[in-house]
């Protein structure tokens, strides 16, 4: 019998703690496939954020570290500067990267650190119970915006890719989504490209933003959440390659 689909070795053979319909599982798999296809498991170091993906090392079978909230790009800097032969990536959510870690990602990009950043944007804080994130949409109801986010009170959703693309130190910035098979394939291609750039020692930071569903805190069915990415999120966070 011919095997047409198999678990990629770097993705561990275990159930995840993620909610039904969550995008983290898909994103993890894309990273694991990339690591295996590029044969870099033996020299890759991953950084898990604070947030739902804090236990990413339970699912990704590479050397990994768990770091303080938002500080992943600083930790990655310390790792890569002292180990230029290693492939260093951070995996961060929107609260981690765009709120508490805004300074760290901005300056890692500004310095042109040779690291790869996978930025999962689901427009909400997941682990702490669905509070407003910097990327929360206008009118989106969260635990801390019970009447919906308003620009007047909480400001507009923060467009991280657009911001980072202005920095000379970033070499590749692309926004993708997990909303359909076609988009997942594009996301995979983008993640792989970001890793390839680091492998080729291209000078600068690469970041892939992934619009990812959170059915639990969007209070939607998994199928509806996927639709919402296309109908709502991509309007504020347009997909495509912004740089590189």
């Amino acid at each position, binding site marked *: 019998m011919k095997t047409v689909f198999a678990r990629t070795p770097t993705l561990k053979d275990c159930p995840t703690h993620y909610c039904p319909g969550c995008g983290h599982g898909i994103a993890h798999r894309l990273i694991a496939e990339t690591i295996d296809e590029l044969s870099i498991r*033996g020299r890759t170091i991953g950084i898990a954020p604070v947030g739902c993906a804090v236990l990413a090392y339970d699912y990704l079978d590479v050397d990994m570290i768990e770091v303080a909230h938002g500080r992943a790009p600083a930790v990655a800097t*310390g790792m890569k500067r002292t180990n230029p032969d290693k492939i260093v990536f951070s995996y961060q959510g929107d609260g981690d990267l765009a709120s508490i870690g805004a300074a760290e990602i901005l300056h890692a990009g500004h310095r042109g650190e040779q690291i790869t950043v996978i930025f999962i944007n689901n427009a909400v804080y997941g682990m702490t119970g669905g509070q407003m994130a910097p990327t929360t949409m206008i009118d989106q109801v969260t635990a801390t915006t019970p009447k919906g986010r308003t620009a007047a009170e909480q400001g507009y959703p923060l467009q991280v890719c657009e911001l980072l693309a202005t920095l000379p130190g970033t070499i590749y910035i692309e926004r993708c989504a997990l909303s359909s098979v076609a988009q997942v394939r594009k996301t995979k291609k983008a993640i792989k490209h970001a890793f390839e750039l680091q492998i080729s020692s291209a000078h600068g930071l690469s970041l892939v933003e992934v619009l990812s569903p959170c059915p639990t805190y969007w209070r939607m069915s998994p199928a509806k959440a996927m639709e919402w990415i296309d109908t709502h999120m991509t309007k504020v966070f347009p997909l495509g390659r912004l740089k590189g």
Partner: protein
Amino acid sequence: MSPTANTTRPGSTMERGRTSNRADERILMCGNEALAEAAIIAGCDAYFGYPITPQNEISAYMSRRMPEEGRVFLQSESELAAINMVFGASATGKRAMTSSSSPGISLMQEGISYLAGAELPAVVVNVMRGGPGLGNIAPSQADYFQATRGGGHGDYRTIVLGPSGVQELVDCMPLAFDLADQYRMPVMVLADGILGQMMEPIVLEQKPRRELPAKDWALTGAERRKQNIVRSLWLGEGVLEELNYKLRDRYEQIERNEVLCEQYEVEDAEIVVVAYGIAARIVCGAVDKARQEGIRVGWIRPITLWPFPMEQVGRAAEEFRIFLVVEMSNGQMLEDVKLAVAGQAPVVFYGRPGGGVPTVDEIFDKIRQSILRPKTRT
């Protein structure tokens, strides 16, 4: 310059640095630069720091010397980032350090707590200045509580070395790196603005390293081995409790084995002055003066502030004596001295907070006043 221009030599555990040419060749250096060169000699692979007075000579010196040695220097965007860069470099098995002064060290407390939780070695130098808040840039010893009580959140300890001269500051650096590697924890070198700025003749030499455990936990890529994970989150029932017990056992081992302290003429002393760091240097002068006046006075100088020399101070308190604690604060180490003395003898205090530096005469007067107190146990 490309971001990876400063790369480490492969397997860079061999120390180099600029040592004295002969064992008796003394070099005149300020404390900040001397400790930096001592760190290089001790095999520091990476330095990360953010500007703050009065320790800026360290990063300026490192920015020049680390690339010369093929090692990593990076000015970070903040102290938060600096300590996390240390965290990252340390997690890969490198010897990494940062330095700052009081307000910057406050910002690093999150990272220091994570280093403790993740059991990662690191060396942090605090060249203390006056506080609280932005305070001033004068020398101070007001961060004793923060340094010796953990400073950040959680149930942990930090080894704290409190040198009192530039040579001792230099000698503390290889010790700090060794202790950090041996016990897998952050070690703080607690200096102050005077120590950082003043110049003294020093000998820079290569010290043999302690026998240290292999860093088999380091993140180097899972090549032909199982995945390594560095973490401080333990959600399973009782798992974190176990880690905390393990850390407690380690801390007790440190308390038994690593205490350093110096004593002077305590034997016949009616009064014992306890001071550390630059304050202890001034105390030496005051004690000498008092001895010349016929006052039987000695001193105890803790070098490790944690672990504190409880036993040494406690033993001195077995004979009835007055203890005078001198600090450049409103009395912080004072509490440890009281714990060590455990009510066996009176403990009095003289302090100058907010950047004030006591003079020999001030301390001498305080010694004279103390000796006039009625000598009763109550």
